[in-house]
């Protein structure tokens, strides 16, 4: 078996409204934290992959601020799938001997810049002709279809929002560590793209997160215990949606299942062996569809899965132990990866899943492809 890659360092800034900190400051801080966490020095980092962030752009300038001796540098934009895609590209560079330690980074100033994701001033387009804008609205279209197909009410998504908020309330690193949320508050908040309301959306935040990937061999020479990349699987919806379906019909299920099969096949593990799941959740409907696509809940019963506490921190498969995008904060695909690493290391604090050995992490995004990419990785302690 080929030696696995490993994540050897993670770092994140605080989240929230940080008007006095530039994107480059935030990126530099997250990268310093990751380098320190790995027990490396700035002089060790010779590869860097950035996902350009809302309200900021590429964290490239942070490489110069830190004086990194880079051989590889690239911006990569596939939305919430970028973090997982960065591991794929890092893998190529590491295995070809083109870099020794690749840092992947996302920094955003979305809160300060008051970014409305999906807003446009273009005078021409495709979906915008009909007034269709934003990933949130596309997920809302998915949500309405889901409600109608299974005959569910508009309280269907609350159990996910509640699950994520309860976890965040136990995690000082979460954006929503302090504020609680009741069903009444959830229900009385305004719609954004109906049927999704304000709390069905991830709140915007400033902040940055980074992680460092290297070869298993190099990882074992460090003091910090490595977290191994046991399996990676990718899929894209272009093919399914071209066949005449849509990206929220059964096709979503199909491409998640394709990515799942690839990752689990490579990892040589079964779904039952997964201890914790960090599922990409910028909108509440998405984790519901994922627990169904992975097979933790039958079709149409994803909401019930969360309502019964089966995805809770002490549930049968804890989901989004840090609070997810909905309550930990939105650093695209980086938040779920960092939490997967923490859980497998045993650093999950009050929401640590006891004895977690294997974590599933997902990422999904559109970038400019017009239909979603989906990726999943399995992180392992040994």
């Amino acid at each position, binding site marked *: 078996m080929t030696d696995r890659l490993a994540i050897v360092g993670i770092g994140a800034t605080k989240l929230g409204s940080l008007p006095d900190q530039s994107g480059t400051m935030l990126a530099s801080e997250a990268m310093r934290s990751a380098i320190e966490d790995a027990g490396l020095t700035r002089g060790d980092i010779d590869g860097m992959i950035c996902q350009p962030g809302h309200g900021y752009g590429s964290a490239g300038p942070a490489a110069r601020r830190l004086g990194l001796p880079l051989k590889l540098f690239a911006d990569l934009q596939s939305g919430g799938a970028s973090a997982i895609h960065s591991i794929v590209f890092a893998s190529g560079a590491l295995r070809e001997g083109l870099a020794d330690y690749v840092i992947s980074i996302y920094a955003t100033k979305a809160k300060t810049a008051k970014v409305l994701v999906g807003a446009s001033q273009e005078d021409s387009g495709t979906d*915008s002709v009909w007034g269709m804008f934003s990933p949130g609205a596309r997920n809302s279209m998915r949500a309405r279809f889901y409600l109608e197909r299974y005959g569910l009410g508009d309280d269907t998504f609350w159990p996910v929002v509640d699950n994520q908020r309860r976890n965040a309330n136990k995690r000082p690193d979460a954006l929503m560590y302090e504020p609680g949320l009741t069903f009444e508050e959830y229900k009385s908040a305004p719609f954004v793209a109906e049927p999704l309301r304000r709390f069905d959306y991830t709140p915007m935040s400033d902040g940055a997160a980074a992680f460092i990937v290297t070869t298993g061999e190099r990882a074992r020479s460090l003091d910090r215990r490595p977290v191994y990349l046991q399996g990676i699987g990718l899929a894209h919806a272009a093919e399914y949606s071209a066949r005449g379906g849509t990206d929220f019909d059964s096709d979503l299920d199909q491409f998640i299942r394709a990515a799942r099969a690839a990752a689990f096949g490579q990892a040589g593990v079964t779904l039952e062996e997964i201890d914790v799941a960090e599922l990409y959740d910028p909108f509440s409907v998405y984790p519901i569809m994922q627990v169904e696509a992975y097979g933790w809940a039958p079709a149409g019963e994803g909401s019930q899965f969360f309502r019964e506490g089966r995805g809770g921190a002490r549930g049968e498969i804890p989901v989004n132990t840090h609070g997810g995008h909905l309550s930990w904060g939105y650093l695209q695909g980086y938040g779920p990866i960092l939490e997967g690493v923490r859980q497998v290391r045993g650093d999950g604090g009050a929401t640590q899943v006891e004895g977690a050995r294997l974590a599933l992490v997902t990422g999904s995004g559109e970038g400019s492809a017009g239909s979603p990419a989906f990726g999943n990785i399995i992180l392992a302690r040994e």
Partner: protein
Amino acid sequence: MSDTPKITTPLPDVDEVNRPFWDAAKRGEFTLYTCSDCGSQYYPAIECTKCSALRPPMSWKQASGKGKVVSWVIMHKAYHEGFRDMVPYNVALVRLDEGPFFLTNIIGCANEDLRYEMPVSIDFQRITDEITLPRFKST
């Protein structure tokens, strides 16, 4: 056909491939991108996925303009200035009788009256001298 006042919402990106679709809409005709080898129909301009040819013989052919609503959203926020005065408005996904899904607006129907699988048919709305939008209404 009905006219609507001049608005500043985005106009469709028209290119050589989809120009026949928009030219037909101007004439009040609804067309789909059709494979002349197997007859499969698509929207938008997707090259036939049932045929393996690198360049399947595709052209725009008349379609029924009928379908059913499979999903919809009510946009409560204006993501573009052109929609500022229209919120809350609907955007719907119609499964056409020929198979493809078509993103559109349902007109003449209050937001709360939209229903799953509601039968709808085409109703063209002239937006500019060049562009006529295929919207749908309840049948």
